[in-house]
């Protein structure tokens, strides 16, 4: 109900289109081509390399490129190019081993821990944490004597040490999915756990696991090369890391020899990373808004002169609010005009997507990222605040225009005590001392109905109930005596009995302080309860504004009539016609 940002397009539909769109991304395409090249080289190494990797020619020790040795000779007189080609094979095999072990263990464990939870999850997570706390290279070095110089065995161990990455990723993904209602629906439908994992859960975790795989492939190549560079590999097997070791030994003679194996490693690893990025980009495409910088420039056009009536606090004229869309600005508020008198409560009512919240946020100057007031004026107390510079706007917020949000819990900072969150705005906005602010805060807490203000003052947000948190937010909003309070669905997240109390509180405070209120809501009952006047919104426009009694007694616009007709208040209950099981089964 709150923001008009479109729901992100689900990422996982269309298996073929994922591959295709990764390949249409230029970096993704380059990475894919490079990887295919490296893999082909590795597979057909004997056909590509002009020499066997072990062929020695004494007179070509540390030779410069040329004379059959494309990239020159190494410290033993072997062809660097041929060894690079064969090195690709051995490096990729090593990486593949680590990768398979890590993915097989990590994903399986993650699936089970995530789906079944309980003690199994605790044990597995503890093991994963333990493995992650070990410096992998040190462990591999320590095990070297017992594992021998076979780099493949080391890569199996390394795979085990990498498995926590897969485990955590998978478990978190499964934990996120398993409480989705569609998994519940599948269970109600009678699917077994195995089929739910196969049908519903694997689909969701597939893409992130592929991304992780690509990155782990890169890590494995680097670590493997590191081990070989340290001399822990089999010297008779040509590898990129082993070649670096040889080049290092001869670095003062031929510094360039360190380039080739290093480049081979870097390019291969970079390809894996770029491929992972391309997939990630593709998955995130749905939630990315178009860049504001590419949008057509707009010059907000103010409308008219300052209102002359002195009891008019807020006068919105022809307000247009837009967000960057694929085809220029997408307007979510299309020419809204509203007037609010001092001490008046105006209900802004409409269904989702009607633009009511966006209208309210433009008054606060707090549109979501990319949002702009494209035209129109917002006259607040004789001053046009549409598109006011941020630092000017900041001086108004809190002090003259305050805000009460919808969700009480997520709108308090979990890291700070309630007391701090109450005193901070007063100290900033009113410039009063800490002790003064504290005294006022305790007063306010008592005023909004806290039975023990001191206790609430000292509590953290998670220690109070939703209804109490909403009272705290209201206390904070009124703490600096604002002229205008913008309340965005302030009772929607609350239970009805709590809602009644909070509405009661808002009504009392409004009457006592004489402030004006814009109450954004979808609930006509709330409107009837607290508002003096009502504006009904539809598709970014106000279709009707009237005094609250007039509107309910005599709605003018068809849309208002339709909405009021849909209110379920006074229906005649259904009568039960007894049936028997036999009847139904028939």
């Amino acid at each position: 109900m709150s923001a008009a940002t479109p729901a992100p397009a689900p990422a996982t539909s269309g298996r073929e289109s994922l591959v295709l769109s990764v390949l249409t991304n230029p970096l993704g395409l380059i990475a894919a081509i490079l990887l295919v090249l490296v893999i082909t080289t590795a597979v057909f190494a004997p056909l590509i390399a002009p020499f066997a990797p072990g062929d020695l020619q004494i007179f070509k020790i540390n030779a410069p490129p040329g004379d059959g040795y494309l990239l020159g000779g190494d410290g033993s007189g072997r062809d660097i190019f041929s060894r690079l080609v064969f090195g690709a094979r051995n490096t990729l095999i090593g990486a593949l081993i680590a990768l398979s072990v890590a993915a097989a263990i990590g994903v399986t464990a993650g699936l089970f821990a995530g789906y079944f939870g309980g003690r199994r999850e605790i044990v597995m997570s503890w093991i994963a944490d333990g493995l992650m706390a070990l410096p992998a290279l040190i462990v591999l070095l320590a095990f070297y004597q017992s594992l021998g110089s076979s780099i493949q065995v080391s890569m199996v161990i390394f795979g085990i040490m990498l498995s926590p990455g897969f485990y955590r990723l998978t478990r978190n993904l499964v934990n996120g999915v398993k409480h989705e209602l569609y998994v519940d629906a599948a269970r109600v439908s009678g699917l077994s756990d195995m089929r739910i994992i196969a049908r519903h859960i694997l689909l969701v975790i597939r893409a992130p696991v592929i991304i992780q795989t690509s990155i782990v492939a890169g890590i494995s190549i680097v670590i493997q090369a590191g081990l070989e560079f340290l001399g822990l590999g089999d010297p008779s097997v040509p590898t990129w890391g082993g070649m670096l070791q040889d080049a290092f030994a001869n670095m003062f003679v031929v510094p360039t020899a360190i380039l080739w194996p290093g480049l081979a490693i870097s390019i291969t690893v970079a390809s894996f990373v770029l491929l992972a990025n391309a997939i990630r980009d593709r998955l995130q495409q749905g939630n990315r808004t178009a860049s504001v910088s590419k949008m057509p420039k707009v010059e907000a056009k103010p409308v008219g002169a300052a209102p002359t009536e002195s009891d008019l606090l807020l006068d919105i004229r022809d307000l247009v609010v837009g967000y960057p869309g694929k085809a220029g600005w997408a307007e979510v508020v299309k020419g809204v005009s509203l007037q609010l008198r001092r001490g008046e409560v105006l209900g802004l009512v409409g269904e989702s997507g009607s633009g009511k919240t966006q209208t309210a946020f433009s008054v606060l100057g707090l549109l979501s990222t990319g949002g702009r007031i494209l035209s129109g004026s917002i006259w607040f107390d004789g001053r046009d605040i549409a598109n006011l510079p941020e630092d000017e706007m900041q001086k108004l917020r809190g002090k003259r225009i305050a805000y009460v949000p919808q969700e009480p819990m997520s709108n308090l900072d979990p890291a700070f005590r309630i007391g701090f969150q109450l005193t901070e705005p007063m100290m900033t906005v009113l410039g009063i001392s800490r002790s003064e602010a504290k005294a006022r805060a305790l007063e306010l807490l008592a005023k909004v109905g806290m039975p023990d203000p001191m206790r609430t003052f000292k509590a953290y947000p998670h220690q109070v109930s939703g209804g109490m948190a909403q009272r705290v937010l209201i206390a904070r909003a009124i703490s600096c005596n604002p002229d205008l309070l913008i309340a965005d669905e302030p009772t929607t997240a609350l239970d009805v009995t709590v809602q009644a109390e909070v509405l009661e509180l808002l009504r009392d405070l409004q009457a006592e302080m004489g402030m004006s209120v814009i109450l954004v809501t979808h609930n006509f009952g709330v409107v009837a309860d607290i508002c003096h006047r009502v504006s009904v919104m539809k598709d970014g426009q106000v279709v009707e504004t009237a005094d609250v009694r007039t509107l309910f007694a005599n709605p003018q616009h068809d849309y208002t009539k339709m909405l009021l007709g849909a209110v379920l208040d006074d229906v005649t209950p259904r009568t039960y016609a007894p049936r028997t099981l036999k009847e139904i089964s028939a």
Partner: protein
Amino acid sequence: MSDDVIVQCIDVNTKFGAHHVLKNVNLTVRPGETVGLVGESGSGKTTLGRAILGIGPVSSGRILFEGNDIAGVAPRDRKGNAASIQAVFQDPYTSLNPSMTIEDILVEPIVARRQASLEEARARVRTLLDQVNLPSDAAYRYPREFSGGQRQRVAIARALALSPHLIVCDEPVSALDLSTQQRVLDLFVEIQDRTGVAYLFVSHDLSVVRHISHRVAVMRGGEIVEFGGCDQVTADPRHDYTKRLLLAAPVADPVRQADRRAALRALNTGA
């Protein structure tokens, strides 16, 4: 077993650790009847619905479905008509797997219960979509291509796929806009009149419950505090809590709402 009860909860208790979420709950639903289950958050209404569905725990007590105890039996282990108990959940955006087509979604329960082959099941999709007033070409589209109300129709179609005798509806219209809400409720009523399916209709909204229910149960703190005919419970409640609940929900009429507000204040100070 009498023929006029489809589901009967007898002294159902559920505990999550030290939390006693359901306390000796007794409830009956008759064939073709809607029983509304109202309560605020934490009242246990959703827990009871999930217990009947077999996806939530039962610590003690019995849940008889057409005479057989199904308490604690997972859906896939349920036999006969109990296997066809279905659900419609609150959020139409998360109750349908975003990466499956509508056809895949509708076919899933039929194939899972081996009621028909995949081909036969696919042939039934058109009828199901028709029952919830969706066009038959909807089958090949994805959930994201539909609005909230349309998605909830798909969820209802899925619930109907096995021709159930009971559907547990957990806040099925509370995420919908006002105008959509009424149309979806009307669809529920129409389907019930036609097929004789019974609903256990869980909601926090008394006006929604009044609209669709034959009988209403009010829950608070894991207990049913009042259970009776819809008109009696929603117009002339006996229990204080029900009275408060009723008066706390604001009505869309400023004049009457002012009276109700005064009545609620009197009730609260009196109590």
